[in-house]
């Protein structure tokens, strides 16, 4: 990489690839240079096919300021040699970045300074990743806990407790940018010791965020995320807020936590339905580990005796009273009944989540040796990438993000091969090739390869509709059939054909937005308590990072 190649090296390589002797190739290259540099002066323009155009252009005289002396100077009229690369070369060179697309920026987003915007996006992305990493960490914790007895789990909590004080100080300092949370935290720190485990969790979360923020700062994704950036912190605040100050004993504390979990669960899930944002789903997931841990305690308490339940109900009453004061709404009378039902429901939900997360974990382990896997979420938020149809020029610019690959085997990202076979092998005359989706593939890139325009991915999608549930996330290893151009009248040189594809694209994407959001489905499954939720095994939330294997500039994935 980053070698400097001389004429000789180039000539040697060219001789090898073309099969001529080195001398004549070198002579050719030298002669080419002579001809070009001579004729660019005589003719003012030389066009070399496949490379580009050299042109001598005149630069008008202009005023400028001397950088050193800060004096005004006049730069006299002069000539310069300009080079405009041919499209072919441009595209070859830009290949590592070719999966990027232009994105429409929302009108209401604030762009006081571009830098801050980038930062914000970083944050949002970081948060995304953070949440998932946390999730994994929690899952590990959870597993440990399941293997051990509850008592031991408590010991773990106590251990965490001892570290907490130091952490608190550090984090309070670090989180200055989020004053609300800091305040809350400080308040909480002064509270009785039994609240510590929860605070601990929060602290750990924050700590995680800090750590990973540093690590992942460079990692920038192309999309703009319209969702609020400080997702995790919101949850944290919520958690904190919902702990009522007076805590009598530990069991009470547990009950409080249960309540809080319920309180959290419902609004979050509904929010999830409201947005079509994958992110929101992840929020919910990040909450589940906590719930899960809590559920353990709940079971324990339930088994112990009914006194606990009474206590709980008392507590609940107290709290709902507290709340009704705030909101002026809820029913006080049937609280006992309600909460019992809700509690049971919560336990069932939590058990399902636990079961699925354990399975999810085991799948993770099966697929890879290291358990600490960093997952990136690609959130191809449709809103930003689609445009109203009709504006065909912009549509071209703006076609959608294509596929994200899913769960990829990280061990062999680069060596996987796209399987292409001749049309005769597949039988049909209207099939150009078969393509097996590999990590980093996108429908639009496949379309670009076969049809010459990314927009024609819609036809690949149309042709493989039965296999593709979601054009934005296609599982790795899926075999796609690439139809011949004639089947759909594909013609990259025909603007009408492109326009047609762009209209179709808008349709597909809008459809997709309406009915096949995997996160919504997941949500439904959850609510109907179906234990065998296929989405939890296929885990559509795991996206591998296409940036990692696609570009050579990836040593530092900082594109900005």
């Amino acid at each position, binding site marked *: 990489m980053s070698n400097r190649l*001389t*004429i000789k090296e180039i000539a040697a390589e060219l001789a090898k690839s073309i099969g001529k002797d080195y001398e004549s190739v070198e002579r050719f290259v030298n002669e080419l*240079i002579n001809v070009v540099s001579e004729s660019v002066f005589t003719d003012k323009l*030389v066009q070399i096919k496949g490379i580009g155009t050299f042109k001598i252009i005149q630069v008008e005289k202009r005023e400028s300021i001397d950088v050193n002396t800060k004096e005004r100077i006049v730069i006299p009229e*002069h000539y310069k040699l300009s080079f405009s690369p041919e499209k072919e070369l441009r595209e070859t060179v830009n290949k590592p970045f070719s999966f*990027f697309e*232009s994105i429409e*920026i929302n009108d209401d987003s604030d762009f006081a300074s571009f830098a801050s915007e980038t930062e914000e996006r970083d944050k949002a992305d970081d948060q995304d990743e953070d949440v998932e990493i946390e999730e994994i960490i929690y899952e590990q914790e959870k597993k440990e806990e399941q293997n051990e007895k509850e008592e031991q789990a408590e010991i773990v909590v106590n251990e965490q407790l001892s570290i907490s004080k130091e952490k608190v100080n550090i984090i309070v300092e670090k989180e200055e940018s989020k004053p609300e949370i800091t305040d809350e935290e400080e308040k909480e720190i002064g509270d009785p010791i039994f609240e510590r485990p929860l605070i601990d969790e929060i602290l750990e979360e924050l700590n995680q965020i800090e750590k990973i923020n540093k690590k992942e700062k460079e990692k920038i994704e192309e999309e703009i995320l319209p969702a609020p950036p400080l997702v995790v912190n919101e949850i944290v605040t919520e958690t904190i807020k919902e702990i009522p100050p007076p805590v009598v004993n530990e069991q009470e504390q547990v009950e409080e936590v249960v309540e809080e979990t319920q309180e959290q669960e419902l609004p979050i899930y509904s929010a999830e339905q409201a947005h079509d944002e994958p992110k929101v789903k992840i929020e919910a997931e990040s909450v589940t580990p906590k719930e899960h841990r809590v559920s353990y305690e709940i079971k324990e308490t339930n088994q112990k005796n009914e006194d606990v339940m009474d206590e709980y109900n008392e507590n609940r009453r107290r709290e709902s009273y507290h709340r009704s004061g705030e909101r002026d709404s809820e029913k006080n009378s049937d609280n006992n009944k309600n909460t019992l039902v809700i509690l049971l429901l919560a336990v069932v939900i939590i058990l399902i989540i636990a079961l699925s997360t354990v399975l999810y974990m085991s799948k993770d382990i099966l697929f890879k040796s290291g358990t600490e896997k960093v997952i990136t979420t690609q959130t191809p938020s449709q809103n930003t990438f689609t445009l109203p149809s009709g504006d065909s020029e912009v549509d071209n610019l703006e076609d959608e993000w294509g596929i994200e690959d899913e769960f990829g085997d990280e061990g062999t990202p680069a060596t996987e091969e796209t399987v292409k076979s001749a049309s005769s092998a597949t039988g049909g005359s209207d099939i150009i090739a078969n393509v097996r989706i590999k990590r980093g593939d996108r429908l639009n890139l496949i379309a670009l390869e076969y049809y010459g325009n990314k927009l024609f991915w819609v036809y690949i999608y149309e042709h493989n509709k039965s296999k593709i549930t979601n054009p934005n996330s296609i599982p790795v290893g899926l075999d796609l059939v690439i139809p011949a151009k004639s089947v759909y009248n594909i013609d990259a040189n025909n603007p009408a054909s492109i326009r047609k594809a762009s209209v179709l694209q808008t349709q597909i994407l809008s459809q997709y937005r309406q009915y096949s959001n995997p996160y919504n489905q997941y949500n439904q499954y959850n609510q109907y308590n179906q234990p065998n939720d296929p989405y939890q095994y296929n885990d559509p939330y795991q996206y591998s990072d296409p940036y990692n294997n696609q570009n050579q500039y990836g040593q530092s994935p900082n594109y900005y």
Partner: protein
Amino acid sequence: MNMKNKELVKELATRLKWTSVEVSEMLSGLSSLIGSHLVESDTVSLEDFGQFEARKKGERISVNPANGKRYLVPPKLVPVFKPSATVKTKLKDLGNNE
């Protein structure tokens, strides 16, 4: 006046005493070679003429003047050509002579 590819091939063919088919084959081989090296962030330096290299252009925001919509244009890699010192002096002379 302008030297397009056709004229270039012709000129090279007469100078090298090759057929124009050979020349254009060689040219396309050269261009794809340059392209593949630029992708790997190599610089291809042709002495006495200049060097080709790939430069990264950062992302930017552009506004469509027709509808006022703003777009985030992604970062891209572009091939650039830096003329060599000899070419630059020639350019200077060109300016001075006129």
